[in-house]
Structures are given as structure tokens and as C-alpha cells.
């Protein structure tokens, strides 16, 4: 999946299997990623578990779990809210990017959105910086805090300074991707770019992710994942992310196509 960290680093990672996104004194988030295409190291998220840890005087421990088969609008214990004075609650919404569940943890100023896009899940969170404790020692592996380990990295960007000509799968420039075996249809860069332009107005990192996903999977449903991620970003303000000008030049034309 594509990861945007709390430090605004933007990465595309393999991270197959179960990985922790966040693990601090307030909450723990773990995801499970599964391969999407035979022969590619790319994976997508099939399960998300969020544990809101007990917070004295505000909420007892609550667990939320979503899978590709089930995106519940309740915690595991069946409740839709918890804590004192509605400090923790879930609401379900249907937006243009698909069905989503929003969890609000008022006591820690935190909002989470879990979406199902096509067959897979997306995750977005907004937390106050002062609850993150970047400097904490032994904070362990947390993808949202530290990004992916180097050996899990497929691609890396810097927000606001991303290259206009990203390396794309099929260009022969990334040997880690291996041969692609699209299960649906073959997308050329031109077709993938055109498809992503249907939903994304600005040719930024999210747009590049959309093109990447179409080229990697050949699955048109993946074009909605980046769109949904952007919608979540807008729904969880304020954010430091600045989108580039809509006039950004086109993504590099890949004559070699997959």
C-alpha cells in the first residue's frame, strides 16, 4: 500500500502480513496486507484493527476491527459509542469514494476513517502531535511514525518536492517489482493516467499513486483508493499537506508500457 506518515513522508511499501501502524499509550492500530497480483510485491490492506486503550475517566478499552468482508459500524462488543459524555463514537457514511466508517475519539482529539474501496481497505487518522511522542525511546515499529523499513520500500517520495517524472512499474527502472501479470486488463501509462484524471484533479503524489495502482494491478477499482484517501484528508482537517497546482505537467509518458 501507499503510506503517508505523520511526518508527511510518502512511501509505497510491500509490508505483506501483519504490521503495526500506531502503538502508543492511547491506541494501537494494526493492519494486515495481502498480495494483490501474482508476481508483484505490491500488497493491499485486507484487515484493520484499532484498539482504543483504556483512558482513565474517559473510556474503557474498545476494539474496532474491519476486514474486506465486513466493515462494521460498531465496536467488537456491538456498541457504537463508549466512554463518558460521548467521548468515543462511530458513525457510518456513504460517500462518492465508497462506504466508510468514521471513528471519533474526542478525549484524545483523534479522528479515524476506515474505507472499503473495491476489495480492500484504506485507513486515515488525524491525531494531535502532542499525543504522538515522536521522541519516545523504544517506541518500536510503527509505520505511521517511522515509515516502512528500508527493505520493505518499493518507492519513496517527499511531499511537496516529489519528482514530476516518477519511476513507474513496467518502465524497467524498478527491478524489485518483478514481472507484472495484470489480472483484469493491461493499462498503459497513457490509459492509467487518463483513468486517474477522471477522479483526481491535481497531478500530485495521490495521482501518481493512482497511476501506480492501475499499472500494477490492472484493476480499475484501484483508481478510487487514492481519491478516497484524498477525501479522507479533506475530511480530517487541519492538515499540513499542500496539494500542487492543478497545472502540474503530465506524468512521464512510458513508451515501454507494461
Amino acid at each position, binding site marked *: *500500500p*501507499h*503510506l*503517508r506518515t*505523520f511526518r508527511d513522508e510518502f512511501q509505497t511499501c510491500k509490508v505483506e502480513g501483519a504490521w503495526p*501502524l*500506531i502503538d502508543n*499509550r492511547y491506541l494501537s492500530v494494526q*493492519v494486515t496486507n495481502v498480495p*494483490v*497480483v501474482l508476481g508483484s510485491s*505490491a*500488497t493491499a*490492506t485486507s484487515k484493520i484493527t484499532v484498539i482504543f*486503550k*483504556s*483512558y*482513565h*475517566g*474517559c*473510556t474503557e478499552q474498545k476494539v474496532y476491527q474491519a476486514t474486506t468482508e465486513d466493515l462494521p459500524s460498531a465496536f467488537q462488543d456491538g456498541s457504537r459509542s463508549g*466512554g*463518558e*459524555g460521548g*467521548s468515543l463514537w462511530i458513525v457510518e457514511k456513504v460517500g462518492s469514494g465508497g462506504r466508510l466508517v468514521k471513528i471519533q475519539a*474526542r*478525549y*484524545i*482529539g*483523534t479522528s479515524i476513517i476506515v*474505507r472499503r*474501496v473495491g476489495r*480492500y481497505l*484504506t*485507513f*486515515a*487518522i*488525524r*491525531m*494531535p*502531535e*502532542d499525543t*504522538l511522542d515522536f*521522541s*519516545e*525511546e523504544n517506541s518500536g515499529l510503527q*509505520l*505511521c511514525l517511522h515509515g516502512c523499513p528500508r527493505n520493505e520500500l518499493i518507492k519513496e517520495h517527499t511531499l511537496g518536492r516529489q519528482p514530476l517524472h516518477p519511476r513507474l512499474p513496467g518502465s524497467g527502472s524498478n527491478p524489485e517489482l518483478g514481472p507484472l501479470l495484470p489480472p483484469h486488463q493491461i493499462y498503459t501509462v497513457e490509459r492509467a493516467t487518463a483513468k486517474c484524471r477522471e477522479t483526481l484533479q491535481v497531478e500530485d503524489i495521490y495521482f501518481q*499513486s493512482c497511476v*501506480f*495502482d492501475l499499472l*500494477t*494491478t490492472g484493476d480499475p477499482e*484501484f483508481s478510487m*483508493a*487514492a481519491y478516497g*484517501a484524498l477525501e479522507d484528508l479533506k475530511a*480530517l482537517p487541519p*492538515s*499540513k499537506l499542500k496539494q500542487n497546482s492543478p497545472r502540474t505537467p503530465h506524468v512521464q509518458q512510458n513508451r515501454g508500457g507494461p
Partner: protein
Amino acid sequence: CRIQRCNAEYVASTSPSSGLQDDSPSDVDYCIALRAYALCTRRTARSCRGDLVYHSAVFRIKELFTQHNCSSDGPTSSAKAPSTSRPVVSELCDYESRVLASGPAGQGKKYAHCGLFGD
């Protein structure tokens, strides 16, 4: 190492002139102050490694948690209290009102975003 700043903030928040309603803080207020103190020391842990004042503070905080029967989880700053009463629980459990209550420094709180999507 910013342990002295943590110490000063803790002393200020528990002193009689800290703006609390009574001369001595309630148990709830005291535990909030203590948790904020613990959080402050954790944040400065890396730069304070080996500093005797820091390590003494960490040791003392553990003792104070036990001594005052405070839980280590819970709010670290108090909600703005009405002039005649203590903050109610729902206010303590509302982060936004807590940071607003913490004064001008709390009004510019920054948020961070993390997202995972696509393949």
C-alpha cells in the same frame, strides 16, 4: 535536556496559586498534573539520558503515582472549570476544550495525519 522546565511546569500546576479553585488541588487535578509531568519527562528522555535530575524525577514520579493512587492513563491537562465548580468529566474527556483551557499556548495545537491506501 529540558527536565528543569518539566519540573517548573509541574510545580506551577500544583502550587496554590496555579489558578485552581481551592488552595490545594483536588485528587483529579493532582493526577492530571502528575500525568502531564510524566509525559513531559518522557518527551525529554532522549536528551536527558544520564542527567541525575532527570532520573531522580522519573523515580519520584513513579512514587507519586503510587502515593496518590493516580492512574497513568487519563487526561494530562484540565478542562476550563466554571468559576464556581470543578470541571465535569465530559469536559475532561473533550480534548479540544482541554487544549483551549490550557491557554494561548494550547490554542495553536498541531495535528498530524497518517494514511494507508491502495496497493
